[in-house]
């Protein structure tokens, strides 16, 4: 098999840094394979991707050693723009990738810049729109797209160039489960039909591993380990639920797909899970009654009525653009409903809302404006008047080592933790989190879950908007599903997530019934569930 990327003794240190992000790394990427790259946040995955299209060292500077050949071309001798036809890249933050005003213009931008003829450009546009399932968005203004829609547009804009190597930095981090599934399907088709090599950097491996030919682990110490997907399972820093279940139950070989796991698990329990009641709720903290919100003339929420109680962890789920963020913002008082009302039952909310209510937006960068992490936390503490300690907050979210750093110098996952530390400092009783696991590695996700559960046990009400089904299954006591701005299901996590075609966990897909988590699955398999 031909190598599309050949990396030999690659070392790289960013300018102004003394730590080598990559240290004498040697590996290769073959034509027509899908390689999943994983590792801790800030460990060097994005840097390694940028080495494969020349952005490192040409764009970022720094000390570069060794060589990277892309389709036989030494990246040291060519600029990234010259490699664009060979290596296409989808960046972690699609917001920063867009340049045009409309979806259609954005998708064809690359080809137009290359001076390709109109017919070819048009054909590629239609193919990309169909492949990503975004035909209906073609005339939309970029500024009106949801995060997930924008991510798909970013992928389409690279696909039109038909590169031989596709580099993707967390391409599904903002996608709903179905959209992520569709995108992965497209990637597999491109790999199988066109021989495209795909390198995907991701934290959430549950869906990806089934399609991966090889796995590349970037542990953050400058080294890189690459190997066959199945052979690397045991070395994964955070194995997906399916692998965890397989390891615990001694399944060999370890399953990569739901179908493989079912062979070990036997018949799936088809009993309905509707019997699972909501855990006994505390007092009502906030109630929404017939809340409708329009963003411009676009209805984002329609007649939403909900009651949120003390001690609940509520996961808001639904497709991209379903209204999750708007609902959170309505609770945070950042949008005013055109109809209906948001009523707080507990007195402090009425006078001094943010003393008791904490909100963390989807983009952690948008929440921060001070020069150090420590000052960010102090600022929230002083502004909200909460009782708390800066040091405790930094320790709780394991960001004390960044206290003197500028938040802008951190990776997306690290920024997310800093935003959580700052906005949740003290003991707010209503916590609103928008996509809190974006850019988060598995250990940080574990930390998030344990911290949220501890706060909920202490009486806090937590509402998190997320596409992360595993997060919802592990942490939420209640799940609210939204579609087109309406609540379409509201119940215990077990009742809503079990047996859902889209919003169900790997464990549930294998065992059925009311099994949601790895622990549920193990208990079920051992006959004590």
């Amino acid at each position, binding site marked *: 098999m031909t190598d599309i990327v050949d990396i030999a003794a690659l070392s790289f240190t960013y300018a102004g840094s003394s730590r080598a992000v990559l240290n004498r790394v040697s590996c290769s990427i073959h034509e027509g394979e899908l390689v999943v790259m994983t590792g801790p946040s800030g460990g060097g995955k994005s840097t390694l991707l940028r080495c494969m299209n020349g952005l490192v060292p040409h764009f970022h500077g720094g000390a570069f050693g060794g060589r990277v050949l892309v389709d036989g071309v030494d990246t040291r001798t060519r*600029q990234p723009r010259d490699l664009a036809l060979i290596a296409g890249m989808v960046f972690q933050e699609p917001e920063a990738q867009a340049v*045009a005003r*409309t979806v259609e213009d954005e998708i064809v931008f690359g080809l137009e810049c290359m001076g390709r003829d109109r017919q070819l450009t048009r054909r590629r546009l239609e193919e990309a729109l169909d492949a990503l399932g975004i035909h*209906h968005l073609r005339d939309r*203004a970029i500024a009106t797209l949801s995060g997930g829609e924008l991510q798909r547009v970013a992928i389409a804009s690279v696909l039109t160039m038909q590169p031989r190597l596709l580099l993707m930095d967390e391409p599904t981090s903002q996608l709903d489960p*179905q959209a992520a599934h569709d995108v992965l399907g497209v990637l597999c088709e491109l790999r199988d039909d066109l021989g495209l090599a795909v390198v995907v950097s991701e934290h959430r491996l549950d869906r990806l591993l089934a399609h991966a030919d090889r796995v590349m682990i970037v542990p953050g110490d400058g080294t890189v380990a690459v190997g066959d997907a199945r052979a690397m399972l045991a070395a994964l820093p955070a194995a997906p639920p399916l692998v965890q279940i397989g390891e615990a139950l001694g399944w060999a070989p370890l399953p990569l797909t739901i179908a493989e796991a079912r062979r070990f698990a036997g018949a799936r329990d088809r009993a309905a899970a509707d019997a699972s009641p909501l855990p006994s709720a505390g007092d009502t903290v906030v109630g929404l009654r017939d809340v409708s919100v329009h963003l411009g003339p676009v209805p984002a929420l329609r007649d939403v009525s909900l009651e949120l109680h003390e001690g609940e962890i509520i996961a808001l789920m639904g497709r991209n653009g379903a209204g999750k963020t708007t609902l959170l913002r309505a609770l945070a008082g950042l949008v005013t409903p055109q109809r209906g009302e948001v009523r707080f039952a507990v007195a402090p909310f009425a006078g001094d809302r943010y003393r008791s209510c904490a909100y963390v937006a989807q983009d952690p960068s948008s929440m921060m404006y001070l020069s150090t992490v420590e000052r960010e936390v102090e600022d929230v503490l002083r502004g909200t008047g909460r009782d708390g300690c800066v040091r405790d907050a930094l320790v709780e979210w394991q960001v004390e080592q960044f206290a003197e750093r500028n938040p802008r110098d951190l990776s997306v996952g690290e920024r997310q933790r800093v935003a959580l530390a700052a906005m949740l400092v003290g003991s707010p009783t209503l916590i609103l989190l928008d996509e809190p696991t974006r850019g988060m590695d598995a250990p940080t996700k574990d930390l998030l879950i344990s911290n949220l559960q501890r706060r909920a046990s202490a009486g806090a009400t937590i509402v998190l908007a997320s596409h992360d089904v595993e997060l919802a299954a592990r942490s939420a006591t209640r799940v609210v599903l939204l579609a087109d701005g309406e609540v379409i299901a509201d119940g215990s996590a077990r009742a809503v997530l079990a047996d859902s075609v889209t919003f169900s966990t790997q464990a549930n897909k294998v065992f059925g019934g009311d099994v949601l988590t790895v622990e549920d699955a193990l208990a079920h398999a051992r006959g004590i569930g």
Partner: protein
Amino acid sequence: MTIVETRPGHGAMIDQRSASVTHASSDTRAASPGLHPAVWAAWLVAGSAMVFLTSNPFYIGVIGLCAAVVYAAHRTYARRALDALLLISLVIAPLTIPLNLITGSSGATVLFDLPSVTFPSWLAGVTLGGTVTSESLVYAATRAASIATIAALVCAFNAAVDHFRLLKLAPPSLAQLGIIVTVAALLVPETLARAASLREARIVRGRDAGLRALPSLLLPLLAEALERSIQRAESLDARGFGRLAIQRGSGDGIVAVFGVAIATIGAFAYYYGAPTPVAFAGLVGGTLVTLAVVVRRGRDGALVAMRRQSMTRRDIGVLAATGAATAIFVAARVTGSGGLAYLPFPELIAPEFDPVLAGAALLLLTPGVVALMSERA
């Protein structure tokens, strides 16, 4: 588990494919189905030229009104950040009134006296302060109205036009430059949107988010803008932007720079030195060389737009209306009729009002009428 009833047509299945069709409202659509970008450019040029051609507050008022209506007709949720830009312009424009007044007043009707200071002759002997007259006040207010009207025209243009499609109308040789300008222009709405995010961040921190907080947000906004620019530049590089321009040789670029330099030196010498034939030849020759490079590179076709943008009858109608409005203003200015030029000196008099010229100014309303008709249709 509670299954909430949904209205027919809205009860989306949980497992429905995310690619399902959602009907975008007119607000979420870009302005591309609207007027041709060139028509918008012509409208902006015509409106601005008309403001420069007149100092009559009646006509300026009519043009400003047209701009406001056109802005309102094209304002979208996505471009709501322009509201802030318009507001800032409307706040800044009146600030020019005191500036005008302290830099010298003339006229017969004295309102009050300010302390004055006269600079020495080697500093041009300018006098600041002194007598403030009604005539000067009216003149300064008229200039402020002109500035506010230009700002309204620019906001209306920006709300309506698709900049990206406008840039595709430029000769291909200017496409690279056009994209750089377009991407740079993206920073304005993005920074305004970012300012809104930072304001929200302050709100949820229990901090003051009013105007007093603005100075403390300037530095983070600048840092954010720089960071976003770097990310976008990285993305542009990775998408092959600039590849063709660089491949097609830098010889043309050197010739173009040489042409611009000769033309600039020629112009400077002709207008500020002696208007000699050599200076004139430099001006004309340098300009011709530059144009020749533009035309030559234009034929190369560095950027090929996927869609050819053709004009519709609507476009031609609006173009004709704005063209006619400008022509009427130019004719009135040349003939000195209709009171286009209004000077309240030496004594305050009421400005003239000519219904024909007011009607001409009203022709700038045509894009707004077209938008409203399209919406109704």
